[in-house]
């Protein structure tokens, strides 16, 4: 089997698993998850083979693995789709394969496989737990299996298919197909517990919000196709003539070049998918889904897809760039990214839901990557995408493990408290040692703990690029966000794991099963080691080149220069990371049960603003949702439908009635009916006349016949014999 065939086959197993589970296997939970995890394993294996083959190829960027088939006949040519593995997609494939496999495995434990069915469990609601009687006839509440267990694995299988398709595509169309499949799956998975009103609202919110981005992205794709006649990466992004043409022709819109306009349109797709400001609102609400879904959406797949796209279209964003001056499109990208990084980081400080903190930190970290693309730090963005996928998957799965442990405690006490609220936790390091350790690693990687964690190296590279290329504002804002990131990460770790348990439930939390902890350990290994592949050359005094930079940089036509070593950004990232962590640990060193957030006093009204997420939900509710409802209820339904359309219809009906009535009165009744009645009446009258001779007496008839015959005989005789 050639490597190209193998690339074609990578997305297939999860898709087959999806159909097989939906059609045949859904009655058996064990069978379903075996198929799904097996499929993920096959795809993982294929991805690893492809990745390790790819990194051995010299100049992979110039000679990627490519295979195309003609797909859609277009006049006298074909629209070709195909697969392509270049350095960028190779590293993406690597982290996608790992995180997807870990998430599949984790889901088995998270959905309580092997536990009894709960008596009150209903499809569409999270399991409530089951009562079990042991040998000493004590009744215990234990976790119960998810009622829609098999369906979950079918959905994440389809989700994985979408992501793999997106990564291996060699053109924007199949990328968009994978993109939309993921959009559908995120809708299905966020609303997996559709019995909850909040989950239903969140699924619709996520779908609608990303739809806004997707429409613009599709416009960008169509524009690109109409300008170049192709959507293939090689033919557009790595073709200097095409890029030059696109960069030099004006689009006639706000003075942008065609490349700039297309770049911005495609970037809006990223804004939606990667939850950048102002389309970030859906992502925190997406936490309504089961935790593996949060990891799936926020780490491995969907949000990464947005950043992957913006990295992929970097040549178009930067087309026309001269002497390092960023283009308009890049400025837009850099602004959105930088703003989002700071904006989301500040919100995360005031959130109490363990998953929501992570959701905002994801938005913030994605903002980093987008900002990096915007300042031209192509490799740094990819690097951060790579490391972030691991440590954020780790953090989400870790938070899932924490929530799972808390749910155990809730089942034990039987009280109904929010298992996601960090103020109900505390002291969990003793109850969940493995989760604590791995969560700590993930959190430190997110905070950028110097030297040992992967997050430090990738974040440092972005900061170094921003500093080295003179984007001082971007540098300062990102450094500030890094400080806040470290602070809220430590806040989260302190509130969750340190101190004393603040509730009885936290006291009775228990460690999760091996299917959940094993993925945590594996991801923790990556959360540390993923940074080593991109160590800057100055660490080893130039003895070892920056492998990641060399490899991924080869994707571009012009190999980007590594920035000069500068001590300022390195020191900055160390200081902000350690400072933030230290500050967080100090502020939250000892939060007692029932105590309010120490920041609440320190920040005052600002804290309320942050806690309410700058009131963006309320703003959008006011600006878009309520007008939409008003449009539907008042304008369309009452005014347009009932008044205008129904009015026109009623008017037509009235006019038709008038015409019909007059036709009836002046034509139908007198003329048509009159003639018919006349014929009928005449026939009747003639009948009455002739009735008189119908006596019923046979002899009279015969006399009549005789008389007539004599008469006619005489007439006949006269005309035929006498007249001639």
């Amino acid at each position, binding site marked *: 089997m050639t490597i190209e065939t193998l690339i074609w086959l990578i997305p297939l197993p999860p898709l087959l698993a999806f159909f097989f589970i939906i059609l045949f296997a859904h009655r058996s939970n064990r069978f379903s998850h075996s198929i799904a995890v097996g499929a993920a394993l096959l795809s993982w294996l294929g991805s690893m083979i492809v990745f390790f083959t790819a990194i051995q190829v010299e100049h992979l960027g110039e000679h990627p693995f490519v295979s195309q088939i003609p797909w859609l006949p277009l006049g006298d040519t074909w629209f070709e789709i195909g697969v392509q593995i270049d350095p960028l997609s190779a590293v993406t494939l690597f982290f996608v394969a790992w995180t997807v496999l870990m998430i599949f495995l984790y889901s088995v434990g998270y959905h309580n496989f092997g536990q009894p069915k709960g008596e009150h469990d209903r499809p569409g609601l999270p399991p409530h737990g089951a009562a079990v009687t042991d040998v000493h006839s004590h009744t215990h509440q234990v976790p119960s299996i998810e009622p829609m267990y098999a369906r979950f694995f079918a959905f994440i299988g389809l989700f994985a298919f979408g992501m793999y398709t997106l990564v291996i595509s060699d053109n924007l169309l199949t990328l968009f197909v994978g993109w939309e499949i993921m959009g559908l799956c995120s809708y299905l998975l966020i609303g997996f517990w559709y019995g909850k009103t909040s989950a239903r609202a969140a699924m619709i919110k996520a779908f609608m919000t990303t739809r806004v981005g997707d429409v613009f992205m599709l416009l960008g794709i169509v524009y690109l196709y109409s300008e170049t006649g192709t959507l293939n990466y090689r033919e557009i992004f790595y073709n200097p003539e095409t890029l030059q043409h696109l960069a030099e022709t004006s689009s006639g819109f706000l003075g942008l070049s065609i490349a700039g306009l297309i770049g911005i349109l495609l970037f809006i797709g990223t804004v939606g998918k990667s939850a950048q400001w102002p389309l970030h609102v859906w992502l925190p609400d997406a936490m309504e889904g089961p935790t593996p879904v949060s990891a799936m959406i926020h780490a491995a797949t969907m949000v990464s897809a947005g950043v992957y796209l913006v990295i992929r279209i970097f040549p178009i964003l930067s087309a026309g760039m001269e002497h390092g001056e960023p283009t308009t499109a890049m400025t837009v990208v850099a602004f959105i990214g930088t703003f989002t990084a700071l904006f989301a980081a500040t919100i995360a400080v005031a959130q109490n839901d363990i998953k929501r903190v992570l959701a905002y930190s994801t938005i913030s970290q994605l903002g980093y990557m987008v900002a990096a693309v915007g300042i031209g730090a192509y490799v740094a963005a990819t690097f951060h995408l790579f490391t972030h996928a691991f440590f954020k998957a780790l953090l989400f799965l870790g938070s899932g493990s924490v929530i799972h442990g808390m749910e155990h405690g809730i089942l034990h006490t039987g009280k109904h408290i929010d298992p996601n609220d960090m103020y109900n936790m505390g002291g969990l390091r003793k109850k969940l040692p493995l989760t604590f350790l791995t969560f700590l690693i993930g959190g430190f990687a997110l905070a950028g703990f110097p030297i040992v964690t992967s997050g430090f190296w990738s974040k440092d590279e972005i900061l170094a690029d921003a500093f080295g290329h003179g984007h001082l504002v971007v540098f300062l804002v990102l450094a500030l966000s890094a400080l806040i990131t470290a602070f809220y990460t430590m806040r989260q770790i302190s509130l969750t794991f340190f101190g004393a348990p603040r509730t009885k439930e936290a006291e009775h939390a228990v460690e999760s099963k091996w299917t959940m902890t094993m993925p945590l350990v594996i991801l923790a290994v990556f959360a540390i080691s993923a940074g080593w592949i991109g160590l800057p050359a100055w660490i080893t005094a130039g003895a070892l080149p920056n492998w990641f930079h060399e490899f991924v940089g080869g994707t571009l036509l012009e190999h980007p220069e590594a920035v000069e070593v500068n001590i300022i950004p390195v020191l900055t990232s160390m200081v902000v990371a350690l400072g933030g962590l230290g500050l967080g640990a100090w502020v939250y060193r000892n939060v007692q049960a029932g105590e309010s957030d120490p920041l609440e006093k320190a920040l005052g009204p600002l804290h309320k603003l942050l806690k309410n997420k700058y009131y963006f939900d309320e703003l959008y509710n006011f600006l878009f949702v309520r007008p939409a409802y008003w449009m539907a209820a008042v304008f369309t339904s009452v005014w347009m439908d009932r008044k205008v359309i129904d009015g026109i219809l009623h008017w037509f009906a009235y006019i038709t009635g008038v015409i019909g009535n007059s036709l009836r009165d002046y034509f139908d009744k007198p003329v048509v009916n009159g003639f018919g009645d006349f014929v009928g009446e005449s026939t009747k009258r003639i009948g009455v006349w002739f*009735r008189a001779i*119908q*006596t*019923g*007496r*046979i*002899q009279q008839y*015969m*006399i009549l016949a*005789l008389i007539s015959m004599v008469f006619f005989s005489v007439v006949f005789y006269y005309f035929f014999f006498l007249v001639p």
Partner: protein
Amino acid sequence: MIPLSWILTFSAALFGIGLFGVLSRKNAIAILMGIELMLNAVNVNLVAFWRYRTPENIAGQVFAVIVFAVAAAEVAVGLALFISVYRLRNTVSADEIDLLKW
């Protein structure tokens, strides 16, 4: 040989007697008998014309035989009808059998 006109006159007289009987008699049986007379007058005509005009051709006799058969069938049907009518209405007077009038 008797001239043809004599025979024709005879048959016309016979036909006239039959016709008178049909038109004047009240009794249905008598009407039927009148019809038989008219049919036989026709037969006399047929045979006479055959004998005097085309004796070499047998068609005239055949025609007469067919009329006999028809007359016999007619009598059979007619009498059966009258019996049936008599059973229902106790009369065979043609004036009283007037169900078909309006």
